[in-house]
């Protein structure tokens, strides 16, 4: 139990520190890498709550796919990193006050005295043959099967939308025109000129 608490607090500190770095860093690549570290640390927190499948999905889908896409877009777009210090300092007090009030209010509400689930905390009893994937799949394919199908259709729509938005038509990029290449005849490409093989004697002086 003690080792679990130690791991929890260490990785919670990593999550919060990475979130701070995402907000305050200036370079978008470093922000994306901090976000990756936040995702990895919170995957550890999810594993501590016995949500192994979702933690692995977080690592695979988010760190593996979404953040790679973010890094790809950040590095592909040639954004000049202007310093946002002036703007940052200008709006920092307003933002900090608002967010400090919001977070203080939330912590006031959800602190352990008011929001105690201690009587419920022993209900999950992970035995050796406990399988999170099996437990999740049992309800996912029965009770939530329509939502599952709708999620699949949503992913298909997202693929079509992303390709339709970012795909350039062939007239603006450089592609091969196969038909034009096949229909080319040698008479259009090669011209033969008759030339004397040796220079004339009167031109060799000049």
């Amino acid at each position, binding site marked *: 139990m003690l080792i679990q608490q130690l791991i929890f607090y260490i990785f919670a500190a990593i999550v919060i520190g990475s979130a701070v770095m995402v907000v305050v860093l200036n370079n978008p690549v470093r922000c994306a890498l901090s976000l990756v570290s936040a995702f990895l640390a919170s995957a550890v927190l999810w594993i501590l709550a016995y949500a192994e499948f979702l933690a692995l999905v977080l690592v695979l889908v988010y760190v593996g796919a979404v953040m790679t896409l973010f890094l790809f877009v950040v590095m592909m*777009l040639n954004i000049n990193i202007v310093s946002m210090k002036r703007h940052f300092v200008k709006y920092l007090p307003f933002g900090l006050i608002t967010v400090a009030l919001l977070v203080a209010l939330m912590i006031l509400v959800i602190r352990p005295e008011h929001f105690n689930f201690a009587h419920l905390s022993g209900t999950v009893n992970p035995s050796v043959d406990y399988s999170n994937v099996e437990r999740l799949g049992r309800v996912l394919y029965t009770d939530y099967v329509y939502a599952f199908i709708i999620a699949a259709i949503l992913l298909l729509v997202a693929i079509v939308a992303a390709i339709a938005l970012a795909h350039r038509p062939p007239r603006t990029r450089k592609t091969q025109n196969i038909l034009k290449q096949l229909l080319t005849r040698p008479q259009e490409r090669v011209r033969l000129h008759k030339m004397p093989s040796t220079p004339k004697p009167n031109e060799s002086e000049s």
Partner: protein
Amino acid sequence: MIPLSHYLIVAAVVFGLSLVGLMLNRKNIILLLMCVELMLLAVNTNFIAFAYYMNDTAGEIFVFFILTVAAAEAAIGLALVVLLFRNRGNIDIDQMNQLKG
């Protein structure tokens, strides 16, 4: 045993930090998308914690679908950013005033 409130406090702090990131950042729309992802992470952590402490799988199902929708949202959002950069040459939020709103 880790109390439920500690999970909730971590999620609340991460949510507040991503909110301040949304408020402070006016230069780069990709950073806004990253802050939205961080907000979704905080919400998902809440769902996971409640699903564990109340011994209810519905919370994990919610997280599953939120992850799906967030992945689709990130793909379409980044495609829009690429399109915006191709048409305008920058992704500065302060200069998005073409609609004269």
